[in-house]
């Protein structure tokens, strides 16, 4: 917002500053074991949170790649989501974790899956007078799951993702019981790879499985060409990352690949 104002891009009559609302700056574990994050929690606090590191480390991995320390000390997880850009690094781990949002307006709170929150580049499902008040990952969506995140960018810091990828999976007896694969900058909004996930679920873990994921994932995405990277290049990165990130998630889950 301040960058937009500085560049004269914002068209605002009035701005309401919510920076110091302490009630929206928290990370807690509910009695049911759900993790609830306040939208005004800064990236440093989220990525260093013992709750996040213990239960959903994939979120910490992703957030650690954002900007530099100064930016992570100020920028908030809610700001990253509400900004609505396809490259938002906190979005892919959270949609892979089936995160739910609580949005509050004059008529009270309402809930929606994060995946449905993104409407298009820079556009999210917030009505006038509404703000994001909670980001929730329920216990059933992280317990027994393991994940991995990778950001492909031109630099190791202070850069926007060319492609960001998160995978979260659950294994049982070398069978991929569940896979959730998400990409950033691979479509107009951060997306899940529904058809690839469906085809992969229930299959035995193998190199063939990873090869198949690599092949089908390109049908789930629709990257565009921009000055940052051409569409063809992005598709190649997506196919490669799908395989590598899912592989690491499987290894993190204790699996082996033959």
């Amino acid at each position, binding site marked *: 917002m*301040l960058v937009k104002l500085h560049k004269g891009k914002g068209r605002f009559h009035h701005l309401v*500053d919510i920076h110091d609302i302490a009630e929206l700056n928290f990370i807690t574990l509910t009695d049911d074991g759900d993790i609830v994050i306040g939208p005004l929690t800064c990236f440093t606090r989220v990525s260093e949170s013992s709750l996040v590191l213990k239960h959903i480390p994939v979120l910490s991995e992703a957030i650690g790649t954002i900007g530099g320390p*100064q930016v992570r000390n100020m920028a908030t997880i809610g700001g990253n989501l509400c900004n609505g850009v396809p490259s938002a690094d906190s979005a892919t781990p959270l949609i892979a974790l089936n995160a739910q949002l609580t949005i509050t307006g004059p008529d009270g709170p309402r809930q929606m899956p994060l995946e449905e929150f993104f409407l298009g580049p820079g556009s999210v499902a917030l009505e006038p007078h509404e703000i994001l008040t909670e980001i929730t990952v329920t216990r059933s969506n992280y317990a027994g799951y393991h994940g991995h995140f990778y950001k492909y960018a031109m630099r190791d*810091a202070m850069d926007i993702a060319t492609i960001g990828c998160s995978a979260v999976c659950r294994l049982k007896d070398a069978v991929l019981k569940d896979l959730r694969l998400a990409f950033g900058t691979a479509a107009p909004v951060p997306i899940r790879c529904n058809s690839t996930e469906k085809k992969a679920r229930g299959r035995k873990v193998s190199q063939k499985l990873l090869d198949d994921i690599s092949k089908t994932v390109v049908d789930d995405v629709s990257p565009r060409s921009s000055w940052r990277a051409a569409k063809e290049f992005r598709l190649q990165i997506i196919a490669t990352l799908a395989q590598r990130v899912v592989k690491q998630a499987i290894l993190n889950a204790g699996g082996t690949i033959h």
Partner: protein
Amino acid sequence: MDPRQSLLEVLREQLGLISVKQGCAVGECGACTVLVDNVPIDACLYLAIWADGRSIRTVEGESQNDRLSGVQQAFVDEGAVQCGICTPGFVMAATAFVEKHKGRKVTRNQIRKGLAGNLCRCTGYDTIVTAVQKSLEDDT
């Protein structure tokens, strides 16, 4: 105070603390790094009113009784200064990093990551990393 003013503007223009440099003004270069309650932030993207009631540290206050701080002295000893415009921001980011990692073993790569929010267009990064490494050693 105008509520639209950044901390950078207030520190430089109203308080005369000109060690706080304006580089990019959009949070990419780190030249305006100051510590708010000992946490490094880009003062260009931080509204001055947010600092109400908080402690602010700039390079001006880092030396005590004409004695440079450990980090400042390490920058001098290692020659970690070229043209100098990025130096105050680097010193503050390095100070926060050293305070956060006191007594812990860190690699040069971790130091680089810890200073990733600061750019030096003279590209004198190597001596800066060494200076941070030295001030960490001196502190343990």
